[in-house]
Structures are given as structure tokens and as C-alpha cells.
């Protein structure tokens, strides 16, 4: 782990524009950005030796660096941020399954390909699909920000964007998607090996992985291309790819240039997509809150008035759901218990967020219940009212009034946390923003649209809460200092 720690700790200082190759030779080191989360076989931690990085890209990079006369050092970075980080100067180059698409070619220098991949379509065994066109009108999963996503977006089908390699295939098996389109490297390792999954035997498309280099570094690009050519000629690339069981007939065949759709404008269709996403965000939040409030109230009552068993049970629930990330809870609910529960993304999101927020609501209501003077319950009991009547007519109405401001807080916070449901392939507002930014090649307009919609969702709610509060406080003296 020590090695990793050092690699993460320090990025390389940026060289002057166009001077990266000089800097590399002076330092005796070339730094390359990649994301370990991409997993086997790209770059990943050696399970046998903690902290050691292995993968075919590590081997290629080491060989390439040797030919440049320097050492190679990997710098960890989130995959989706690799290109912006390269431009910022966090590392010298990017090498991590970076597909050579036209828009990347506009933005960066791309080396000659070091690997030719195919887009492989996986379907459920037993389904009659023979080509990608048989899936028109169906739901097809892939990784977000990939060439496969561009292909799916161009066809009249519903795309389900995922963040991890396993998840789309789990959902394929569970029937949540009807097909998965991904690079053959990922498909062969994570999809085609599953008993219930069948991979179609021909390529939907082909593309290549290239090394990404900053626009000004022509000298470095030339040196890398020379080194790659020499590695191909000497058979070194074939040796490495064979060792990782990646060498196939595609590597020696011509690759046509891959086609990406032209940048999209903020058109009517996109406005519609944004509004749909906003509606989904609202739906997720409202339904989740409708679970969180009654459950939270029940938990609070158990904690405050329950016997030792009920009180401990409620505490365990609260600590468990408050003490672990919502993201983890969503994953467990959707994937972990996927086979037992068969929840769709929306219901999993609603239930997951609802169960999580119930823990927070419970503490808000507990505080409110404890803030009510003792005399209130005594007066109620002295009138002959039972415990439940006292709760229903005296304690809960007063507690809810006290809890209204923090509840409004929690709802607005839930509105934003609902973006986590995008991890189970639901396209809500934040996800739509990321996807639109990709399609438009700009974050500016989608970012503003997203922010405006969130505020349009939360503001009327705060306003409603304010009015409710004012109405409820008819029975209170105005507060002054």
C-alpha cells in the first residue's frame, strides 16, 4: 500500500507548454494517468502483492518508458476526469482504455493505437436477438462516456448508463436491461463468462485505444509513436498482449476511424429530457420522503417511549443507516439483494433513500419530542388519555411543528441526494446534466440548466414549508430577543 500512497500523494508539476518531453528526460520519469477502478486487465492492484500495480497497460507503459530511457509512474485519477486533469498538467499522458474518437482527437494528440477493440453485444441466453438492431425500443446498458454509449444514443433505444463493469451484466441477468454493449475486453471478462449471458459472435463496431497527449507536445507524441512502432516491429506488443490473453486477429487488421456524433445543441429534445429528469428527481424525492417521515416518526417514538428492546432496535437501525453511505445501501438493495427482491431502479432508489432518510428524520423527531415540556404529557395522562392518544393528539402534533424547519432542510437535501440513484442506471437530473455535457462538449449550459431546475424544485418547497410554519405558529407568541 505504501507504493500506492506515494503515487497518489504527488502529481507531477506541469512543464511549460510543449516542453513535457524535455521535462520527462530531465526527471527521468514519465507519469501517466489512469483509474484503478477500471479493473483487470487494464491497470489494477495485484491481488497477490498488495500495492503492486499490474495490467497490460502497465506492461506496455513500462516497455515504452524503457525505450524512452526513463521510468514510468502511474498516477491515480477518476476515469471521467482523466482528460481535464491531463490538460491541467496533473500528469504527462493518459493511458487507460482511451478510445480514439474524433472529439478526443480535437482536444488532444492521440498516439497510434496500441490495442484494437470491438464492441460486443451481450444478451440473455434464450432471447432471440441476433443484432443490435433487434434491440430497438429496448433498454440497453453500457458504461457512461464510452463509444458504446454513443452508438446506443444514435439508435432508437433506451440507454442505461452504468459506472462499473459488473453491474450492467448483473442487470442483464435480472432482466432490468435487454442487452449490454461494451468493449470486448470487458465483455469477455465480466459478461460472456456468465451462465445466463450470451455474447453475439460478431463485432457491432471496432475502435482503438490510444495514448492521450497534451495538444502542444508534438515532440512527445512523435517519440511515443516511434517507441510504439518499434515495439510492434520487435513483437514486444504482441508478447505483452498475448501474456494478457488479449492478442487476436483484430490487432493486425485495418481499423476504420470511429464515428462520434457531432456536438449537440441545447435543442427542444434536450429540454424535454431535462424536464423528464427533473420530474424523476422530484418523484424519487417525494416518494422517498413519504417513506422517511412515518418510519422516522415510528423510530423516534420507539427510541423515546419504547421499552429496552424497542429502543435498542430503533437505535441499531438509526446507527446502521446513518453510519453507512447511502450509496452503499443503494448498491446492496439493488445489486446485493437484486435476485431476492427484483426491484427496478426507481423503486430501489425510493426505498433506499426512504430507509436512509428515516434514520435522520427519527433523530429530528426525537429531539422535537424531548423538547416538549413534561407537563404536556402529564396533563394529557391526568385527563385519562392513554399513551397512544397522548402521542397522537398532544405529542406528535407539537413535535411535527417543532420539526418543520429541519424537515424542510432534509427534504431539500434529499432532493439533491436523489442524484445517487443514477448509480443504479436511472437518469435523474444530475445524470442528465453529465450526459448532456458530454453530448454538447461543454458543462456550461447543462450545468446552468441543472442548477436552475434543482432550485425550481426546492424553492417552492421551502416556500410551502414557510407558509405551513406560519399557519402552525398561530398558536405561538412571536419570537423576539
Amino acid at each position, binding site marked *: 500500500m505504501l507504493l500506492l500512497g506515494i503515487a497518489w500523494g504527488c502529481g507531477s508539476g506541469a512543464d511549460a507548454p510543449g516542453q513535457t518531453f524535455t521535462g520527462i528526460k530531465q526527471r527521468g520519469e514519465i507519469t501517466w494517468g489512469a483509474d484503478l477502478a477500471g479493473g483487470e486487465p487494464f491497470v489494477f492492484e495485484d491481488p497477490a502483492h498488495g500495492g503492486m500495480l499490474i495490467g497490460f497497460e502497465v506492461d506496455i507503459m513500462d516497455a515504452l518508458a524503457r525505450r524512452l530511457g526513463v521510468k514510468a509512474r502511474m498516477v491515480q485519477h477518476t476515469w471521467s476526469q482523466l482528460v481535464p486533469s491531463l490538460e491541467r498538467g496533473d500528469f504527462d499522458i493518459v493511458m487507460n482504455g482511451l478510445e480514439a474518437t474524433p472529439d478526443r482527437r480535437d482536444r488532444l494528440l492521440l498516439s497510434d493505437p496500441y490495442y484494437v477493440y470491438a464492441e460486443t453485444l451481450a444478451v440473455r441466453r434464450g432471447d432471440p436477438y441476433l443484432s443490435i438492431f433487434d434491440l430497438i425500443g429496448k433498454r440497453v446498458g453500457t458504461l457512461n462516456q464510452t463509444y458504446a454509449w454513443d452508438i446506443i444514443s444514435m439508435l432508437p433505444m433506451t440507454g442505461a448508463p452504468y459506472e462499473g463493469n459488473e453491474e450492467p451484466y448483473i442487470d442483464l441477468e435480472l432482466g432490468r436491461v435487454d442487452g449490454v454493449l461494451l468493449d470486448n475486453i470487458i465483455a469477455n471478462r465480466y459478461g460472456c463468462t456468465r451462465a445466463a449471458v450470451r455474447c453475439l459472435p460478431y463485432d457491432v463496431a471496432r475502435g482503438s485505444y490510444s495514448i492521450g497527449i497534451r495538444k502542444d507536445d508534438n515532440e512527445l507524441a512523435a517519440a511515443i509513436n516511434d517507441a510504439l512502432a518499434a515495439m510492434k516491429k520487435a513483437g514486444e506488443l504482441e508478447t505483452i498482449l498475448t501474456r494478457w490473453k488479449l492478442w487476436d486477429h483484430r490487432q493486425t487488421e485495418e481499423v476504420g476511424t470511429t464515428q462520434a456524433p457531432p456536438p449537440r445543441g441545447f435543442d427542444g429534445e434536450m429540454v424535454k429530457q431535462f424536464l423528464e429528469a427533473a420530474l424523476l428527481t422530484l418523484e424519487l424525492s417525494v416518494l422517498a420522503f413519504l417513506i422517511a417521515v412515518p418510519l422516522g416518526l415510528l423510530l423516534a417514538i420507539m427510541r423515546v417511549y419504547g421499552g429496552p428492546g424497542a429502543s435498542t432496535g430503533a437505535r441499531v437501525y438509526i446507527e446502521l443507516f446513518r453510519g453507512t453511505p447511502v450509496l452503499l445501501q443503494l448498491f446492496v438493495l439493488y445489486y446485493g439483494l437484486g435476485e431476492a427482491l427484483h426491484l427496478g431502479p426507481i423503486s430501489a432508489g425510493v426505498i433506499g433513500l426512504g430507509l436512509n432518510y428515516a434514520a435522520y428524520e427519527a433523530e429530528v423527531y426525537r429531539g422535537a419530542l424531548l423538547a416538549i415540556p413534561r407537563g404536556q404529557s402529564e*396533563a394529557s*395522562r391526568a385527563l*385519562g388519555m392513554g399513551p397512544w392518544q397522548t402521542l397522537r393528539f398532544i405529542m406528535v402534533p407539537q413535535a411535527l411543528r417543532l420539526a418543520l424547519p429541519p424537515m424542510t432542510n432534509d427534504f431539500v437535501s434529499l432532493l439533491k441526494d436523489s442524484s445517487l440513484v443514477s448509480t443504479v442506471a436511472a437518469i435523474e437530473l444530475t445524470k442528465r446534466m453529465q450526459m448532456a455535457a458530454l453530448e454538447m462538449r461543454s458543462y456550461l449550459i447543462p450545468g446552468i440548466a441543472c442548477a436552475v431546475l434543482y432550485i425550481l424544485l426546492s424553492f417552492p418547497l421551502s416556500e410551502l414549508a414557510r407558509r405551513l410554519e406560519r399557519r402552525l405558529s398561530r398558536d*405561538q407568541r412571536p419570537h423576539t430577543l
Partner: protein
Amino acid sequence: MISVRTLSKRHGERRVLENVTADVTKGETIAIVGPSGGGKSTLLRCLNYLEKFDEGHVEIAGAKLIPGMRGSEPALRSLRSRVGMVFQQFNLFPHLSALGNIMLAPMQVKKVGRATAESEALALLERVGLGDRGGAYPHELSGGQQQRVAIARALAMKPEVILFDEPTSALDPEMRDEVMSVIKDLRVNGGMTMLVVTHEMQFAHDIATRVWVIDKGTIAEDGTPAQVIDDPKTAVSREFFGRLKR
């Protein structure tokens, strides 16, 4: 109506009530007086089981209270609906209007219909001199008005006994009279059985059939106002009343 037998209550080592034995017959008004911390309020609160006790028993309005009554919730509820209570801090429900405060328990506990509950509540408000304030919320009422609503709330359950726990102590002097006159009226025109913990000696003198002086958890002296207040027999009473006069 009420009989208390060898009632004892401890707070850890401290004895709050010690071996209290007393009887109250129907229609009596008992003024409970004595130095602070002597156990007056605790004794009163034991009578409707808002406080638990450790030994002895209480018979009140046909119910029997013994130590450790957990689980006899229905019996407690029926007892409390026959024994009203008025608190020092009024304890009106702030989220309900004066009428709402009075109507709630009859409707929920005795299942009285809304119309009946409302007309009875209005009559009670009239009786405590607040016939026009039914729609007011507690914070809109003065302390004296709040306490009168609280008395009407207790009366709405048609109790056989009402326990008053220092009903005028939280009030400004000018508001005490309005509350005391309502209580007096209950005795004169209602024949209600009442126990009143109070520091108002003149009031105790005027309304009480008997006065209990409570000190250190026991009834130090028990007799008519003329006997106890005007001519105290025990050292405790003499010192207590002597201090008040100075």
C-alpha cells in the same frame, strides 16, 4: 372518597413521603400547606398515580392504587377520568384553542360527540367567566385566564375529585383572585371534593374544611382552619405560620 394508608415514597436514600395515612370524605375541601420540599405536591401526585410510591396504598373514587401498577393502564385511565388535576404551570395544550383543550378528553376518552362536547365546553367556559374566549389559543390568554381554562378542562370530565397543585403560585397577585374565586365557587355551588396545595393562607382559611400541614413527608397537623391556622398545636405548624405572619 379518599383513603390513604401508610403511603411511603423514597428518592434513593431520601424519604419523600413517610407513612402517610389520611381520609377525605365526599364534599370536603382540603388545603395542603407546609414548607417547600415537604412533600405536598408529591402526595397530591400520588393520588392519581402521576407519581409512583413504594409502600402503602390509596383508595380514591372507587379505585385502589398500590405500588408497581405497571400494566394496569385501563384501570389508571378510568381512575384519572374520575380524578381531575390542575397544575401550577396550567399545562394547556398550546396547539389547541381553549375550546379544543376542553373538548379533547371528553371526545377521546369518554367518546362524547363533538356537538355535545362543544356545548358542554362552552357552558364550562361561561362558568369560569371566559364565555367569549373559546377560540383563543393559550398564548393569547393571560395567566389567570389560562388557569381558568385549565380548571374548565378538568371539569369537562365531570370528575368526582379535583387535585389542585399550587394553582395560583405562577400567577401575578392581581390574577390570583380570579382563579381563587373560581375554586371557591366550585366548593360553594358545586359541592366538589377538592384537595388544594397552596401557599395562600387566607384562601386556605376561607375555603378549606380541613387543613393538612405537611413537613418532611408526613402530615404534621390535620384539623379545621380555625384549629390549625389560628391555633397551631405542633412546633412545625407554629414555626411555619409564624414565619408567614412576619
